């Protein structure tokens, strides 16, 4: 098996993880900010 950091995947059909982050200017962001709309959330690999 390819070694990877083992992390648990969230379940499809279940509530999405309640996560927060920040915009580059420091303003807070929360996944709940998008409640009432679909959200396509793209987790980027490293930026280069």
């Amino acid at each position, binding site marked *: 098996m390819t070694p990877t950091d083992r992390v648990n995947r969230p379940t499809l059909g279940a509530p999405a993880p309640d*996560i927060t982050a920040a915009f580059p200017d420091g303003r807070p962001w929360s996944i709940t900010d998008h409640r009432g709309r679909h959200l396509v959330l793209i987790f980027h690999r490293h930026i280069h």
Partner: protein
Amino acid sequence: MRARLDELPDTDVVLMTFTDPSNVAAYRQRHAVDLPVVIDRDRSTYQAFGLGRGSLTRIWGLRAAKRYAEILRNDGLSGLRRPTDDTRQLGGDFVIDPEGTLIYGFWGEGPDDRPSIDDLVAAVNARPTR
């Protein structure tokens, strides 16, 4: 991609990264990224969505070598940049419905492993499934 997603009603698209905020502006300019970008420096959001780190052979294997050869061929040495972040961090793409339910997930297994835009559009348009 942005054009296709912009066609979807009541849909937001957000790019999550873990890079330093000072890198974001240059990245957006270089790649013409016109999406909202948010930053999670400690990658707890990546962990929450089940995105770990790939193996060295998967991240820096033959496919990566081919990709960097292409960059060298097209842009020369100026096209290469020293990585500023964890190059082994895997990415993914997810769709959350208006009620906050995770309805689609793609867990990338390598740096160039991405779903098709058609898959993302279909996920937004699909009825909720379990």
